[in-house]
């Protein structure tokens, strides 16, 4: 019980803590994620912008150099030598420039026709080389870039090309055409594609992005990404068919020299990424930058994993601490539980643990201690009471034995010579009772007096000890008076006289006294508030099997012990082979569980229907019928039955 209490407490507290931390952490994660995303975006935008500036600056510088040279030539018209030395100087100042050329084609209509020439300076290692592009071997007029320049109205960058015969590398060239009355002059400045590529690669390495420079003709110059190098952006659309709409929009924007950004799936890094693009000043170039959140997300994940581990460790430790505290706090309860179990097994002397603190457990321990004392006291009292009761019971048993000894020693009489049979039954409702019976055969063997059966049945008011004592008094008095009494009426009158004296408790006894002349069958009977006996005959003459049961006429005086009274006796003669049946109210007032009384009618019916053979059977049959009626209900009163069978003496 207590271990599970501890476990439950630890479990619930731990679960609660986990739940609380989960909610807090979720909010924290969401918030951090949002903040970091914002920061990343800002950082990325800053870096994109820095990259744009860097590339744009370089291209601007080259353009500016070419434009400046063109402007000088246009306005000052220097000599070939001067121009060539200018180009050489410009080349030394612009390290990014791979080469510069000046091509002069004087117009035919010009009056002072100047010499045509095409001079080209380019870098090879640290030194500056010179090539005459007008030489036969170079075939200037067949070069794509030159043919393009001839069509141009304004300066423009060429698409990357390999300068066969002069620069001998992959390059792109800024063309500045000048047309005036002196003819056609072209200033060019080259940048090696490799220089651009190196620059982009450096930026990529530094900023963790993919950077692409898009030429005006939409060729791609990439840094580290070789797969897209020099591909035409329009052609890439054929490969990127997953998001054609997005790509077409991008293409349109780049064509229109617009800037913008969008998020998409980048197959290269297999992650969602941001694409940002912007035109580079007035160069007609576009810079396209792709960057992902992968790094940041990874960082955030690392942070979260660490945080989760911290919380897990914390919760684990907390669980341990709670377990330790709970165990410690519940220790007295455990002791108390042990004590309770000992109590339950009846070990009331078990010493309770001392109340540790003045808290609930302390209070509980105190209450337990009080309970222990009360229980001990109660058990002691109970033992005392039990002892008392046992003593009383023992006394009652002795009293019962004494009372039984007051009754005739044998409850059966069967004198065949006198032709009489008698059975009696007495059952007190409690240990002792107030019912009594008595019989005595007076046979003095003389010729004058017939043998007599004297019998008495009585019921003292109430029951229990008081009734039993009064019964003893009655029986003793009967035994003393019986022999002097001339007849039953005289017996009752004398007995009553004795009992009325000193009867402060107002006890009384109903009594039936009779004598049966065993020769003549003459019955003298007197009653003191007791029902007359029933007279039974085995009617052979009757067609029915039923016995004849007659109630002897009630002639009675008051119960004995109440007031002085002169009793009278009834005299009748009974037939041979007849029965007399007397009883106390334990029979007719026997009650069943429904509260109904057994009653006189049931007694008579029972006697009518049974087979009359002897007095024992008569009593046992009557008892069986009564017990069937009461159906196990507690007997309310003492019960006495007396049955007499007069056979009649054969003379």
């Amino acid at each position: 019980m207590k271990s599970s209490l501890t476990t439950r407490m630890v479990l619930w507290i731990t679960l609660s803590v986990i739940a609380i931390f989960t909610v807090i952490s979720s909010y924290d994660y969401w918030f951090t994620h949002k903040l970091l995303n914002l920061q990343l975006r800002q950082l990325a935008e800053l870096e994109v912008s820095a990259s744009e500036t860097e590339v744009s600056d370089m291209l601007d510088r080259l353009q500016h150099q070419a434009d400046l040279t063109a402007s000088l030539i246009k306005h000052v018209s220097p000599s070939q030598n001067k121009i060539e030395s200018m180009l050489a100087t410009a080349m030394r100042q612009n390290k990014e420039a791979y080469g510069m050329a000046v091509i002069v084609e004087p117009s035919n209509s010009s009056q002072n026709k100047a010499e045509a020439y095409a001079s080209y300076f380019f870098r090879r290692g640290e030194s500056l080389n010179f090539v005459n592009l007008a030489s036969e071997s170079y075939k200037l007029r067949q070069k794509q870039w030159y043919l393009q320049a001839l069509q141009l109205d304004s300066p423009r960058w060429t698409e990357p090309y390999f300068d066969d015969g002069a620069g001998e590398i992959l390059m792109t060239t800024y063309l500045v055409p000048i047309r005036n009355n002196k003819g056609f002059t072209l200033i060019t400045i080259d940048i090696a594609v490799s220089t651009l590529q190196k620059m982009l690669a450096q930026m990529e390495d530094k900023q963790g992005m993919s950077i692409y420079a898009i030429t005006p003709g939409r060729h791609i110059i990439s840094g580290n990404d070789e797969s897209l190098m020099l591909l035409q952006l329009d052609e890439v659309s054929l490969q990127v068919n997953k998001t054609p709409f997005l790509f077409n929009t991008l293409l349109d924007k780049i064509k229109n020299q617009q800037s913008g950004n969008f998020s998409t799936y980048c197959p290269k890094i297999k992650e969602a990424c941001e694409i940002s693009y912007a035109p580079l000043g007035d160069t007609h170039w576009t810079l396209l930058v792709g960057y992902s959140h992968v790094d940041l997300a990874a960082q955030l994940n690392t942070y979260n994993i660490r945080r989760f581990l911290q919380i897990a460790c914390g919760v684990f430790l907390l669980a341990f601490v709670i377990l330790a505290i709970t165990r410690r706090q519940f220790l007295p309860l455990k002791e108390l539980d042990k004590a309770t179990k000992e109590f339950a097994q009846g070990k009331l002397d078990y010493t309770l643990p001392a109340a540790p603190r003045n808290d609930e457990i302390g209070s509980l321990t105190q209450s337990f201690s009080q309970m222990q004392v009360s229980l001990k006291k109660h058990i002691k009292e109970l033992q005392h009471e039990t002892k008392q009761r046992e003593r009383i019971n023992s006394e009652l048993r002795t009293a019962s034995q004494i009372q039984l000894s007051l009754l005739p020693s044998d409850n059966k009489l069967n004198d065949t010579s006198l032709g009489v049979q008698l059975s009696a039954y007495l059952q007190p409702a409690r240990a002792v009772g107030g019912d009594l019976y008595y019989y005595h055969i007076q046979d003095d063997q003389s010729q004058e007096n017939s043998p007599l059966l004297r019998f008495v049945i009585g019921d003292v008011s109430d029951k229990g000890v008081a009734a039993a004592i009064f019964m003893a008094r009655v029986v003793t008095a009967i035994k003393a008076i019986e022999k002097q009494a001339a007849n039953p009426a005289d017996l009752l009158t004398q007995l009553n006289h004795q009992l009325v004296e000193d009867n402060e408790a107002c006890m009384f006894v109903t009594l039936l006294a009779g004598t049966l002349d065993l020769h003549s069958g003459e019955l003298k009977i007197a009653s003191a508030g007791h029902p007359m006996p029933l007279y039974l005959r085995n009617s052979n003459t009757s067609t029915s099997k039923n016995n004849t049961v007659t109630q002897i006429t009630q002639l009675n005086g008051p119960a004995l012990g109440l007031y002085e009274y002169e009793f009278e006796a009834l005299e009748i003669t009974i037939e041979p082979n007849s029965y007399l049946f007397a009883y106390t109210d334990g029979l007719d007032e026997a009650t069943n569980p429904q509260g109904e009384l057994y009653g006189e009618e049931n007694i008579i019916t029972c006697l009518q229907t049974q087979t009359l053979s002897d007095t024992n059977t008569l009593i046992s049959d009557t008892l069986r019928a009564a017990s069937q009626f009461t159906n196990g209900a507690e007997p309310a009163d003492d019960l006495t039955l007396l049955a007499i069978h007069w056979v009649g003496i054969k003379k």
Partner: protein
Amino acid sequence: MSLTIEVVNQAADCKKIYLIGRLDTNTAQQLEDTIDKEVNEKTSMLTFDMASLEYISSAGLRVLFKTSKALKKHGGHFGLMHLQPQIQKVLDIVKALPAVPIFRNEQEMDDYLDAMQQKVLDGDD
């Protein structure tokens, strides 16, 4: 089943006790206690109304007899009212209260009381 006892003080020293239920061994003591409390030397008249008394045992009869005896000792009167047949039968057999008047209704009781008073007045003359 139990016994309910209701005591009504009709006039000075004149009481009526209603017995409802069963007056047997188990309830006799209850009635005896009530009577010890209610009846004293000054009580001149005590009547038991037994209209709702269903059963009386010998223990109950003993209490009635004791009460009548106690009242008689101090010159008080004792009466019974509204006896049910089964109660009447028990009284007839045991004859515990031969001199006790039994009233069938209030009128009979009033007549009895009037006669008693007249008897006292006559005695004074």
